[in-house]
């Protein structure tokens, strides 16, 4: 592992609830908006199919991330796992994919926050508000990871409680009238193909949960915090996804649900309960802010890790002497997020984020397969958390990720081709660049591990 450019280390203060806040904070926005595009593609049955299949894939991705994150304890997350266990070209594309996935998500969140602000105050312009949101969250992350993630915890927890309260009030008969006829009329509008095509937006329920493991280097006890925070986060998202799907499917007619910008808020409006309308409005705003906040944290760590290993200029690998944050990498998220936000095409930005995420979901389990082959013994030093049913779950995850990626062909074929081309070019560029770097890697010195099995 390379040195930080100014020799200062990241501070180790985070606990499991911070890991939860980072992971769920990034993703919960997907329950408030975006997931409902599955309904437009495949109706209620398509959406339920996407929820279950993508959910299964993410449960397995999060188990892979728990094992890899608690073992390596490095800030780069998927990038570092690919660097250690696959190779430099693969590492660079994963680092870049994570960066792009989160930056695009940050831009999308900021656009939505600005749109919400404009719906409340019609006289304001969206783009300046978008800039303001991005700048404020960048500053928050510049000042320190603990403050940023404490804020995320408060925002995310409030948004989650809003969903749970809505669900239980609805099934208890005091949260609006649930209409079975909405489900029947919009069950399967585009046939079996539609059900399958709905998978392309399935990741939106859970996109980015693997990022929870990216704060491993800043955790007090990463071997406990990462698996516990990651699994708690995954359960929370599955809960949120099922509850959101249920209330929205029964309160909003399917044709409207498929194109709604804020489906949960709209469902609360349909319920006619003022308390729920206010609670879900606050939840929508909070979840966008939490997501944008978490994505600044994760994308900067990925950029920091790429820089620390000289894939990029080492200048970005500096750690702030007072706040112990990778401050140059944090600040650099701002111009890229602004560039994405300036484009203004929310669905295109989201699709690029999903494509980048799916590249990671192929590479994360592949890194785990390689890790298990290189270090087959489950020693406390190398693998403190041993995930279940591996490597079979890793193979199944790769299969599901490729299947979901293939469904982008319906409606977003150019995005898919452009995204994959971008990563193929990046692979060859970084492989070429890596040859010119004097990279030394010693398992004992860098991680305190023995030599891998194939070198013994």
């Amino acid at each position, binding site marked *: 592992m390379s040195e930080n450019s100014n020799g200062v280390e990241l501070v180790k203060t985070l606990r499991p609830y911070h890991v939860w806040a980072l992971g769920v904070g990034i993703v919960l926005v997907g329950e408030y908006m975006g997931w409902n595009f599955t309904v437009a593609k495949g109706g209620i*049955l398509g959406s339920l199919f996407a929820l279950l299949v993508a959910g299964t894939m993410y449960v397995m991705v999060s188990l892979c991330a728990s094992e890899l994150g608690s073992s390596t304890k490095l800030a780069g997350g998927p990038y570092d796992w690919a660097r250690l266990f696959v190779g430099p070209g693969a590492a660079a594309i994963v680092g870049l994919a994570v960066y792009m996935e989160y930056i695009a998500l940050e831009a999308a969140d900021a656009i939505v926050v600005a749109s919400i602000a404009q719906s409340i105050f019609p006289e304001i312009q969206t783009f300046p508000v978008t800039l303001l949101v991005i700048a404020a969250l960048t500053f928050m992350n510049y000042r320190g990871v603990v403050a940023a993630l404490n804020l995320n915890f408060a925002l995310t927890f409030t948004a989650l409680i809003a969903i749970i309260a809505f669900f239980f009030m609805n099934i208890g008969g005091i949260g609006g009238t649930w209409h079975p006829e909405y*489900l*029947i009329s919009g*069950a399967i509008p585009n046939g079996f193909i539609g059900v399958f095509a709905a998978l392309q937006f399935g990741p939106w329920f859970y996109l980015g949960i693997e990022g929870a493991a990216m704060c491993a280097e800043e955790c007090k*006890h990463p071997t406990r915090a990462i698996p516990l925070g990651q699994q708690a986060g995954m359960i929370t998202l599955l809960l949120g996804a099922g509850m959101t799907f249920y209330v929205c499917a029964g309160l909003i007619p399917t044709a409207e649900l498929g194109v709604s910008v804020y489906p949960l808020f709209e469902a609360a409006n349909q319920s006619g309960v003022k308390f729920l309308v206010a609670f879900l409005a606050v939840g929508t705003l909070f979840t966008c802010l939490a997501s944008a906040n978490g994505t600044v944290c994760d994308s900067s760590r990925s950029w920091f890790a790429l820089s620390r290993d000289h894939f990029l200029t080492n200048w970005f690998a500096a750690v702030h002497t007072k706040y112990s944050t990778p401050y140059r990498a944090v600040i650099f998220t701002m111009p890229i997020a602004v560039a994405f936000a300036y484009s203004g095409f929310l669905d295109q930005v989201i699709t690029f984020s999903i494509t980048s995420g799916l590249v990671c979901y192929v590479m994360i389990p592949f890194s785990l397969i390689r890790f298990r082959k290189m270090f087959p013994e489950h020693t406390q030093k190398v693998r403190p*958390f041993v995930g279940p049913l591996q490597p079979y779950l890793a193979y199944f995850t790769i299969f599901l990720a490729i299947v979901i990626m293939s469904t982008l062909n319906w409606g977003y074929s150019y995005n898919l081709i452009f995204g994959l081309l971008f990563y193929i070019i990046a692979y060859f560029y970084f492989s070429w660049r890596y040859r010119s770097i004097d990279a030394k890697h010693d398992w004992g010195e860098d991680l305190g591990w023995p030599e891998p099995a194939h070198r013994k």
Partner: protein
Amino acid sequence: MVNETKYHNDLKKDAGIIVLVLGLLFFSETFVFYTVMSTLWDAVPEVRTLFPVYLLFLLLLLGIETIGCIRVYNSIKEHMYDFKYYE
């Protein structure tokens, strides 16, 4: 010197939170699944064809998550004294 009582109590708290949210997950997912399937069963004939696939993924999702949580519990229990998790 490690305070074993504190460690066991803190481990129970960790496990308690996970059991609580996992219980909530089992309830909500099966409730949602049952409600949607029973609503559509007679009205939409395609449901009968798709049902086994849906059931398979529901069982996979809940089963793998539960096994994962048990593994996390065992891992924390195994290493809590070595890594001083609850100091």
